[in-house]
């Protein structure tokens, strides 16, 4: 079961993104995260979360979820916003398979916007 995101619960704190970077790098960094808060439309207060899975990009917009198959997503900008490293070049979510406690992004989300069924 993959990670789920409730975009209306999300408060754009980026804890999930930082946690994912920690999982990848054993350090604090943001460039390797497969879960990213898109926040370039701050002037409109429009934000959400993009998650890269093995075969798809999950784009959790405030008005609803969109899932793009990777092949289709490659035809546009990558399903998110400007970021230092395009989502399609990042590793897919592995559900933190090396952790006994499950995905770290779920553990650090303060508002349960990231979860598993």
């Amino acid at each position, binding site marked *: 079961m993959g990670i789920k995101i409730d975009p209306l619960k999300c408060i754009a704190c980026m*804890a999930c993104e930082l946690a994912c970077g920690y999982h990848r790098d054993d350090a*604090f960094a943001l460039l390797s995260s497969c879960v990213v808060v898109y926040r370039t439309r701050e002037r409109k207060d429009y934000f959400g979360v993009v998650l890269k899975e093995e075969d798809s990009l999950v784009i959790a917009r405030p008005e609803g979820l969109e899932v793009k198959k990777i092949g289709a997503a490659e035809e546009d900008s990558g399903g998110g916003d400007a970021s230092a490293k395009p989502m399609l070049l990042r590793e897919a979510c592995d559900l933190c398979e090396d952790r006994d406690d499950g995905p770290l992004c779920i553990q650090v989300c303060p508002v349960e916007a990231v979860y598993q069924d």
Partner: protein
Amino acid sequence: MEYLSSDKIAVIDLAAGEVEELELDEELVAQRIGGAGITSHLYAQYQDEDPIVLGAGLLTGTLVPASSLAVATGKSPLTGTLVHAPLTQYAGQELKYSGFDYIVIKGTAPEPVFLWIHDGIADIEPAGELWGAEVWQAVSQVRAQMGDELIQVLGAGPAAERGSDLGQLMINEWASGDRFGLGRALAAKKVKLIAVRGMGLLEIAEEEDFLAGCLELLKAVKAGAWGGRQGLGELGAALGYDDFAAWLEPKLHRHHAAFNTPFAYLGFLMLEGDPKAMNEPQADEPGVLVGDPGALGALKALGLNVEEAGDILKACAKAGLDAAGVAKVCQGRGITAAADILAALEDISGPVEGLSGPFSTWAPLGLAPDEASWRRRMAVAHVFGLDPIFMLMAPELSEDKLVELAALGTELEITTDTLEAVVEAIAG
């Protein structure tokens, strides 16, 4: 400095147009920890050249809950004393990952400039048309010029450029916690803004124990008095603002949080369109982000409705004015109608009565049991780099735990005695 650090300080000499890079000495961190502990040390070192010193805290940008804070330390045009302006939202983490731990900005540039801090490089660039631009225009322009929409901008607006001591050091388009006119101090150096982008990596000494400590703190915070709550309405109620949530409701859109901060106190007032609609607004500038409960409360106390308050906050944000200072000055002059306040913004300035001490009352005194404990929490927040408002809400972020994490993260001998000495040095 190997851990939780980029091991670099930039000393920017505006008069000479030169940048010197220094290592961050581990011994200095072992003595002063970070944040305001070290910005105040660097301020004293370069005091003759009237510096403004930017810095992140030791724990800024980590998984320690509320790790959002950067500090701007300098002499306030309003008080004439050394102050530490709190910079939250995404500014702290961006600075922390920029490749510099601290940035000393000293002297005055011969012509207007902006500073570009990224990837361990600090550049001085001509300001060109940025100088004179209103805040939102300058933010758009510098991001377009550098080709990165995620650049965080610490800047001065037209109000600061004309010498208003209400000229705030802004964060992107929005107000910061600067009550001290450091925007004016920056503009007086002929610096329009500091553009920051952070894509670095912070190593952790004892990474597994550090992570375990962070998760334990988050669990405690979520079980605390503010767990499961959010928003300006809740915050205003705690501060005793009458019917605050109901007053906000007609224009309130969503809340969001400063970086890795569990309580979302940044509220967006949607002034155009339906505030309850969640699709992307058509208007380019539909509203204003409010992260200053005191400013909002002060405008409400003048008898304004939320739409009027929002219009004033938006105008202040574009001009780069501290809205709390504006409300206070207008109240003192008997200016209380929204149209009159908006008209007054063009040439408004201080003084603002009642400012004292090195820390900003943007983090409300009303959230602390007394002034002494407020000052202590401010000092601890500004040393470790933790959100000052949340620090007042979360006693779970105890000094013992933070000291323990600082030591785990760095392998330095940082103790409660170290913290005590730093608090004493910066808070008096």
